Structures are given as structure tokens and as C-alpha cells.
């Protein structure tokens, strides 16, 4: 919350989300620049910094993609301004070249890159482990184990960055970014540094000449980390086993030792500086035992770096366990207190006795309907997917649909009638469609459709569209323009005309961009199901590259702005199961607002859920769904 991250109350303790703690740490460090691209679980950070930017005398932007964000931070850093860059794990992959290059040039003003990983991919298509990138790019990395550390590490990261003249990475995970716990505030700086002039002979250049300097920086970081307060040991002098842990694994490990009563035989070595490892610090403790369990999120990154370290120290005689080879912890997926406790119990022979429970046998248990992900009530994507599916059913040839990343990724599931044949990463739908569309020359005659959202269009689709246009691929590119980066919490993007700091700006029109590239473009309303189905049908018959913008605002945003219409089912007009529509509104259309009244045997509207878009009223074959009042969707 904005008031909390800016509160001038040093010493006061608040319940803070990990992402709030990151903001607070950056503000305590006196940042003047912040740039990010939204992605769960990192998105709240720049949203909040944008809201407080003016008051706190900093600049914050939602950049069009992660590479733009990181490079913008480098620009600000050149003028010795402290800059914060934020992204999720996928974003870090987008940034690969920029990251490795920035590490060669180094930075001037402190620059911290916060990457939030998503173990078990709760809100992602994968659970990439960002930490490999820090090692690959020779960047120092910190991993907070709780919210207090998220604040403290970000703050200290700026000092470290300036000391080393190097970018510093802070790796968070969902349980930190989207967790909450107590954080005690530090002081906010009274004065903010003005930008420094850049002289004629000042340079920030990424070229291999600086490889030795880059290596020297990472060695220096290792030496600094040897004495870091973020690394600590708790346990007996000569333990039977040491748990080496980082990030959210730390508190799970503490709890496991407590629950299993192993305080006298198991020690916990917590590492906050996970790249480069403080080798002397770790070796000192490893010499006290011959069994080590590594507890960390996602890949065996710490584990294999510890294995490396052991390989260089023949005096250590250690049986190393963790996620590699699945000896005790699962190879993939998020950790939790049960997994860690069970692993420790297995290794030590300790017995865990849980609370008394009753398990109802499966044959007596209530059958629970699964709660699948679906589009929100009134979501324009539901209409878009319905009409695209309908068109593909009536036109000739089996259409191939290439999906992309956003709320509409759900279109690959039941909510979107399983429309996608292809899904990869952001911007991949149109690029892959371009390739497929080139095969017409060899007789491939299936219609090819690529889908992407408006924010994704700016993020990575623009170069792909130029490519498709220049090489005249046979394909239809459909832009699902809902005027929001909806999935991550409605962040604005260049098409909307609103900045992260809440200022109006001249929007960049997607339609004009497409036209400027030289593509014929049609704009249609997905809520006009019949009319737009006809448009798609006609477009698919034309050769070459076609672009269709399906424009309708995200329902969750729209409902906040408009007077909601009342939608209801006229019981006398609904013919129920006699109709022959097969309960179209609730079964096929599938909006959570359209429910079935089993007692009456008729359709019904759930007034709590319905947002009043009224599209179902246009589709009911009996005309039984009525709509009254409210403002029309534009």
C-alpha cells in the first residue's frame, strides 16, 4: 500500500507484502528511476512505485517490454541515478542479451534488478529458475528469505551495485512477492541526488575488453559476501546434518527442525548471497558435518554450486542431497513445509506425528466439481473465442490457431473451446504463424490464425508483424484489444494513453501502427457475434497477411466505469430443456453469469456475478434473456 511504503516512521513495524517490501527498500535507497514490464508475481512493485513516484521525486514507467525496461535503467544509471528494474522469470529470458552485455559494461548509479520467479507456475506457463542467468552473466545475486530481507537486500543492493559498479540481481519467488509478514521500516533519505552530467570521455560500453574487469567484480562480490549479515548458521557445533538453504526454503527448514525436535543434531546454514557463493564461509561449516541437505526453490542451483565447491575441497567428506537426482526432495515444483519436513524425517529417522485426522473413504466422499479457470463474466475474450470457433467450424479447411500469452491463454482450455493448436511464449503466436503461412507455396492450404493481446502486441509482436508483412505470409493476425494488461492486474500500456504515474499521454494507436507497416486492417466488436463472425469468414478467404483488431474493453475494468445494466431471464419465454438449444447460455456460452435453475428447469442470471454486458441476450434463440438500463459497451 502506498501510504505504508512511503511512511516516514523509521522503526515502525507493518504487515507488508514482499513486493511492498521491495518498494520500501528501493525508496529507502533513494531511487529516482524505476522501469518494469508486468508479470505475476512481480507486478505490484511498479504499480505502487508509479503511484508514489511524484511524491517521492522519482520517475516510474511500464516499459513496452523487459529489454526496454532494463536498458532504460542503464541509461538512468549512466547519469549516476539509482534505478530499479523489475520483471518475472520469463522477462529475464527476454532480457538475456541486455543482461549479459550490461554486466560487461557495468553501471554507474546503483542498479538493482528484481526478478520474481514463480515455482510451480501458479500464474505462469513455466517455472524457469532465474538464478542461472545471474551466474551466466556474472552478476552478484541476493535471495531474500522473508519480507524484511526483501526490503533490506534491495536497499543494500544499491550500495553493493555502486561499490562494484555492477548490476545487482535480487531473486524473489511467489511466496516472498505474494506473501506478507512483518517489516520494520528504515529511514527515507531526506535529499535525492540530482543526475550527474555525462562528460565527453565518459563511457558505458559493453565489449569484451571489459571481461577481466567483469571477473574482478564478481571476485570482489565473493569477498564481500564472506562477511554478509544475510548469511548465518544456527545449530549445534558438530551437527549430524546441515541444511543449506536460501529464500523461502529457510523458514520451512526452521519449522521442520522444530517440529521434528532436531535442534541438537541438525544445523541450518542460511545463504542470502547465492551468487557468487561465499566459499570460505560455507566451507567452514561444511567441515563440521558429513551430511548436507540443500533446500531451495525450483532448480538444484545452490545444490550444484555447493557440489562444485565440494569438488574443489577434497578435505570435505560430504553426502550431498537435495533436488538433484530426486534423492529426498522432488525435482520440480514449489517447496512447502510438508515436503521439507518429510525429507528431513526420512534422512534422520525422526518420527512426525501430525494432528488427529479422519479421512473419508473415496466411495463415501462428496464428488466435488473441479474449479477450472475461466474468463470473467462479461469478458470480451469469451465472445472472441466463441466467434472464432464458430467461423472455423463453418469455413473450409481445418484452421490452425496459434496462441499467445495473456488472459486469453485460457482460450486453449475449455473456456475458449480448446481453440489453440500452438502456444509458446510472448510474441510466438504471430512469429510461428508467419512460418506456417509460408508453406502455402508447398501446398499447405489450411487457414492460419495468430492471436495476441494489446499489451503483447507492443511487447514482442511488432517486429514479427513487420516480418510477416515483408515476407507476405498467408495468415490472419487477430489482436484481442481489451485496453489493458488484464491478467497481471490492469497495468496500462502505450495503447491506453495512461502512464504508470497516472498521467495522460498520447496513446499509440495499434491500428495506426499496423497500417503504417502496410497491413490491411479491420476493426470489429467481438460483442457483435453475428457481424464479426461474417467478417472473420470473409478475411479467411483472402490471400496474404490480414489483420483484425477485436476491440472491447476488459469487463472487469468496464464495470467499474459504467452503470451496470440489469440482465434477467424471462421465465415465460425460456423454454428450458424443451427449447432444443441444449441450454446454450449456460452450457455452450459458459459465462459464469449464466446459470441453470434446476428446480424451475430454466435458465437464470446470477445477479452477483453478471456484469451486464448483455451479449447472452443477443444469442438466446428464444429471446428469453432481457436487458434493461445501464450504459452500452462501446
Amino acid at each position, binding site marked *: 500500500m502506498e501510504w505504508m511504503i512511503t511512511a516516514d516512521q523509521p522503526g515502525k513495524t*507493518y*504487515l507488508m*507484502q514482499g513486493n511492498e517490501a521491495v518498494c520500501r527498500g528501493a525508496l529507502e535507497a533513494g531511487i529516482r528511476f524505476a522501469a518494469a514490464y508486468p508479470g*505475476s508475481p512481480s507486478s505490484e512493485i511498479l504499480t505502487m512505485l508509479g503511484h508514489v513516484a511524484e511524491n517521492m521525486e522519482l520517475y516510474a514507467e511500464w516499459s513496452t517490454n523487459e529489454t526496454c525496461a532494463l536498458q532504460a535503467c542503464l541509461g538512468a544509471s549512466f547519469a549516476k541515478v539509482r534505478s530499479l528494474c523489475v520483471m518475472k522469470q520469463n522477462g529475464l529470458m527476454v532480457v538475456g542479451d541486455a543482461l549479459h552485455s550490461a554486466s560487461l559494461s557495468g553501471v554507474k548509479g546503483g542498479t538493482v534488478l528484481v526478478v520474481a520467479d514463480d515455482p510451480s507456475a*501458479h*500464474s*505462469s506457463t513455466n517455472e524457469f529458475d532465474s538464478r542461472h542467468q545471474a551466474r551466466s552473466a556474472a552478476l552478484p545475486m541476493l535471495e531474500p528469505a*522473508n519480507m524484511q530481507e526483501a526490503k533490506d537486500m534491495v536497499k543494500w543492493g544499491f550500495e553493493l551495485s555502486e561499490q562494484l559498479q555492477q548490476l545487482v540481481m535480487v531473486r524473489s519467488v511467489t*511466496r516472498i512477492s*505474494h*506473501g*506478507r*509478514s*512483518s517489516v520494520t521500516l528504515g529511514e527515507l533519505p531526506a535529499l535525492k541526488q540530482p543526475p550527474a552530467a555525462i562528460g565527453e570521455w565518459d563511457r558505458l560500453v559493453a565489449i569484451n575488453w571489459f571481461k577481466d574487469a567483469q571477473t574482478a567484480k564478481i571476485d570482489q562480490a565473493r569477498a564481500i559476501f564472506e562477511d554478509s549479515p544475510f548469511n548465518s548458521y544456527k545449530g549445534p557445533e558438530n551437527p549430524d546434518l546441515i541444511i543449506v538453504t536460501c529464500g*523461502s526454503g529457510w*523458514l*520451512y527448514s*526452521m*519449522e521442520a527442525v522444530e517440529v521434528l525436535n532436531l535442534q541438537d543434531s541438525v544445523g541450518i546454514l542460511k545463504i542470502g548471497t547465492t551468487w557468487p557463493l561465499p566459499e570460505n564461509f560455507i566451507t567452514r561449516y561444511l567441515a563440521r558435518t558429513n551430511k548436507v541437505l540443500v533446500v531451495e526453490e525450483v532448480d538444484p542451483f545452490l545444490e550444484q554450486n555447493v557440489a562444485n565447491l565440494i569438488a574443489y575441497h577434497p578435505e570435505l567428506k560430504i553426502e550431498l542431497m537435495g533436488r538433484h537426482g530426486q534423492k529426498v526432495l522432488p525435482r520440480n515444483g514449489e517447496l*512447502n*513445509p*510438508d515436503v521439507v*519436513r518429510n525429507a528431513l524425517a526420512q534422512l534422520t529417522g525422526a518420527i512426525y506425528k*501430525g*494432528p*488427529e*485426522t*479422519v479421512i*473419508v473413504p473415496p466411495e*463415501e*466422499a*462428496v*464428488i*466435488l*466439481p*473441479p*474449479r*477450472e*479457470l*475461466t474468463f*470473467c463474466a462479461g469478458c470480451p475474450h469469451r465472445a472472441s473465442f466463441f466467434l472464432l470457433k464458430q467461423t472455423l467450424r463453418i469455413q473450409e479447411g481445418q484452421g490452425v490457431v496459434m496462441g499467445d500469452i495473456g*488472459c486469453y*491463454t485460457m482460450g486453449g482450455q*475449455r*473456456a475458449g473451446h480448446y481453440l489453440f493448436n500452438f502456444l509458446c511464449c510472448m510474441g510466438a503466436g504471430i512469429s510461428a504463424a508467419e512460418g506456417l503461412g509460408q508453406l502455402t507455396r508447398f501446398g499447405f492450404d489450411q487457414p492460419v490464425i495468430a492471436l495476441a493481446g494489446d499489451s503483447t502486441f507492443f511487447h514482442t509482436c511488432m517486429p514479427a508483424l513487420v516480418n510477416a508483412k515483408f515476407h507476405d505470409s498467408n495468415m490472419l493476425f487477430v489482436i484481442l484489444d481489451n485496453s489493458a494488461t488484464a*491478467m497481471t*492486474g490492469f497495468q496500462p500500456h502505450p495503447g491506453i494513453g495512461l502512464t504508470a504515474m497516472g498521467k495522460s499521454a498520447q496513446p499509440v494507436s495499434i491500428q495506426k501502427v499496423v497500417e503504417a507497416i502496410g497491413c490491411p486492417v479491420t476493426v470489429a466488436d467481438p460483442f457483435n457475434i453475428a457481424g464479426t463472425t461474417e467478417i472473420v469468414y470473409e478475411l479467411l478467404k483472402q490471400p496474404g497477411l490480414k489483420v483484425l483488431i477485436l476491440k472491447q474493453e476488459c469487463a*472487469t475494468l468496464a464495470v467499474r466505469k459504467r452503470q451496470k445494466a440489469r440482465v434477467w431471464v424471462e421465465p415465460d419465454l425460456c423454454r428450458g430443456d424443451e427449447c432444443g438449444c441444449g441450454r446454450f447460455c*449456460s*452450457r*455452450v456460452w*459458459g*459465462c*459464469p453469469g*449464466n*446459470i*441453470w435453475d434446476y428446480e424451475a428447469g430454466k435458465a437464470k442470471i*446470477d445477479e*452477483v*456475478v453478471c456484469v451486464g454486458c448483455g451479449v447472452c441476450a443477443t444469442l438466446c434463440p428464444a429471446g428469453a434473456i432481457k436487458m434493461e438500463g445501464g450504459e452500452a459497451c462501446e
Partner: protein
Amino acid sequence: MSKQLAKDPLNIIICGVGGQGNILAAELMASALVEKGYFTSVGETYGASQRGGSVMSHIRVSASTEYGVLIPLRQADIIVSFEPTDTLRVARDYANQTTIVITDSRPNYPLGVLIGEAVYPSMEKITEELQKISGSVQIIEATRLAMDAGNSQAANILLMGSLTALPQLPIDADDFERMLEQRFFGQTLELNRKVFKLGYEQEEK
């Protein structure tokens, strides 16, 4: 004499469906506990779904130390839920023979039920199983009561009233109301105060 922490750590789960205000409710409750000086951790699980998916918040309260944000299986002391099938889903994983369950009875139909492929079970069946696997089950018609009071969206605050009234929670109504005053103003604050009280009274009955 103010109320004491009944168990350390005290593990509370607040769950329901995306859009029901689950995360805000957990945040307000945990903030009230931090203000009282307790180590409080909150873990939120909401996945990719903005609306309509299962959402669950874990709150862990201790007088002595910080705990990780996730509650171990079978170790929830209290489960407060805004949706009956999600109550049972969560209770199967997290309840034990002493768990207190408070649930709204209003269904939020998943896609499979809307489509007609799955059947939504009766509240009687759900309650019956909940009673077997937990210590106690209390049904509060939070959404309906909140709707009658002015806005169904306030059901989350109503159930926080019921949670606050439990003797296991080391906070009083005033402690939670201060959090409401910190976060809301005007009509929204008035409505939230009203439904909080309603929920509190439901539990006292």
C-alpha cells in the same frame, strides 16, 4: 483482559473464489494481528485467474517466532470460506479433528457445472462430510446478509467479523475496526463496519 492466542502457531485459512475479496480480508486480519505485536505471516495462492479460480490465503500467528507463509497439511486451526465446495476442498487437505470451519452456503458454480458435465453437491452432503473431517462447522449466509445490508461484495468483511468473535483469535472487534478505518472511508467504511458487526453477532449467537 483481552483475548489470548489459543495455540502457537495459530493457523488460519481464508478461502473462496477469485473476486470474493479473500486476499483483502486476510490482509486486514493479519494487519490487525501485527498491530497487536504478533509475528504474522500470510501466504496467498491465486494462480492465473483474476476471477473465478480457487483462492486461498494462509495466516500463521505466533507470539514467539516468524513462520513460513504456508500451513502444513492437516494443520489449519480455523478455516473461513466464502464458497461451500471450496470449503470442503480445502478442509480435505488442511482440516483435522479440532479444526473450526466457518463457511458461507452460497454456491459459485464452476464451469463444469454450468456446462452440465458436473453436478454441484447439496449443502447437506457438504456439511455432513465437513462435520466428519473437522471439529465444528458453522454456516453463515454471509453473501445474503451482506447483500441485504447493501452490497454482496462485503461478505468478506462480514466473515472477518465472525472470525474476530472466535475466542481463539487474540484480537477484539476494535482491533479489526481500526484496520477498516485505515483502509476505507465514507459509505464503504460505513457498510464494512455494519457487516463486520453483523458477522461478529452471528458468531456470538
